[in-house]
């Protein structure tokens, strides 16, 4: 394992080694959804996956999260092969996936309850997170009583509640208006830098990827593979109007088309 030549490089938090995916495994004629994906994500790194609809972003995120099995290759977290979901990997789904029978507060506290955190402490954590996502006053509402954007924010709070070291987020701000989206981006960056998390973030918005991440991974479709990587070396907070950012935006845009 120990490679003396690379001892100066921090070990990767997440290692994706030769991952391929075909959904109907018994039928070799079905096309590959992912083809030989190799990617190393460092500790505390913020990586964004972009690519056209259907190129396999959700599939890749689910494989990292341990919810979907890869056909070939595997994913390692902290050097250990991922065998299932949970265990420090928080997820926010493309569809909010809240439990309709629980209130916003109970949804956020669900993971803590599984960990045996007492009710008083659990509620305190949940209250803080609901405040963080700007839903103060909606604690006792059921998901069906919340708007799509509010539901998505509860789902983010739920994923944050157990303070996972890895956050896998599938278009978490897709249902938000522009202003709330910008606020949530700031909050996410604050949580990320304050709590030291490794984030894999899926988005359709290139400018969102540019504002948030250390690295943008561009996926090509049919089969999904990594087309290009764009490191974003600029310090945060970033301005969308920065000429360097605009140049990078154009660059990614050209590669996408």
């Amino acid at each position: 394992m120990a490679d003396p030549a690379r001892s100066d490089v921090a070990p990767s938090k997440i290692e994706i080694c030769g991952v391929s995916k075909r959904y109907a495994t018994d039928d070799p004629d079905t096309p590959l959804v992912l083809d030989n994906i190799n990617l190393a994500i460092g500790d505390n790194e913020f990586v964004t996956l972009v690519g056209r609809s259907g190129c396999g972003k959700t599939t890749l995120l689910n494989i990292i999260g341990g919810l979907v099995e890869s056909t070939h290759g595997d994913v390692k977290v902290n050097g250990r092969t991922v065998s299932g979901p949970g265990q420090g990997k928080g997820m926010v789904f493309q569809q909010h996936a809240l439990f309709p029978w629980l209130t916003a507060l109970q949804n956020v506290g669900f993971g803590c309850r599984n960990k045996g955190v007492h009710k008083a402490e659990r509620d305190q954590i949940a209250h803080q997170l609901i405040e963080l996502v700007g839903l103060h006053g909606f604690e006792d509402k059921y998901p069906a009583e919340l708007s799509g954007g509010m539901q998505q924010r509860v789902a983010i709070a739920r994923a944050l509640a157990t303070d996972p070291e890895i956050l896998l987020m599938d278009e978490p701000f897709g249902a938000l208006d522009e202003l709330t989206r910008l606020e949530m981006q700031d909050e996410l960056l604050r949580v990320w830098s304050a709590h030291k998390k490794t984030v894999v973030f899926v988005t359709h918005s290139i400018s969102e990827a540019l504002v948030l991440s250390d690295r943008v991974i561009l996926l090509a479709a049919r089969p999904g593979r990594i087309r290009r990587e764009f490191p974003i070396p600029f310090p945060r907070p970033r301005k969308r109007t920065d000429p360097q950012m605009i140049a990078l935006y154009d660059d990614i845009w050209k590669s996408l088309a």
Partner: protein
Amino acid sequence: MVTSRIISGLCLIILLLLWQFAVMSGFLKPFQFPPPSRIGEAIVELAVSGFPNGERIWTHVGITLWRIIQGYVLAIGLAVPIGLLIGTIAVLDKLTLPIITFLRSVATLSLLPLVIIWFGTGELTKVLLIAYGCFWAMLSNVIAGVKYVDPVMIRAARTLDTRPLAMFVRVVIPAALPRMFAGARMALGVGFMVIVGAEMIGTIQGLGALIMEARTFYRSDITIVGMLFIGLLGFTITSGLSWLETILLPWSKGLSEVRR
């Protein structure tokens, strides 16, 4: 809300008046279509002197209600745990599916002769017939409720480190509850269908027996009163069940708010 109630009340009164006049003018035969006034008299008769053999309406209602409750509770009490088990264990579901589909398709009252041979014509037979009908309606809904939990819910729970027991108690069961309540309502409907037939043998008490006895005495007015009370009883219990559902499942209110 209020005006629509007044309108539907008015409609009912007009209908009853038309009926009354149709009989009084000789257009309908009172023997086939006893007029509302005659039905009112029959209700008074049932409340004061009783029919047949002085059995008053309260006795009939009470006995029918008690039989339904016994059969219904027995059926639900068995169907819920068995359904949870079958719905959870895929192999069990595969094995039992043909049997369940077959047995639930058997019209309950067609079992009547057989059940009489096994258990006689007493109370047990009536309660068991009701239980049989209710059981299959409830069972298939409990199984479906558990089996078709939205996989997205399961996934979300798994990412939150939910262990198997918690998954069952705190995800699968709550997710299945709306379907289970739907099953409970269907089962009640079946119970009311079965009760009238089940009470037609070996008893003069109960609303089904009342209707049967009324037939032998050519008292169509009393038949209608029996129907009326069965309907009222069913309506009351179903409303109670819906009320219970809004209390126990406050979260599913928003889900049903769909207008077309």
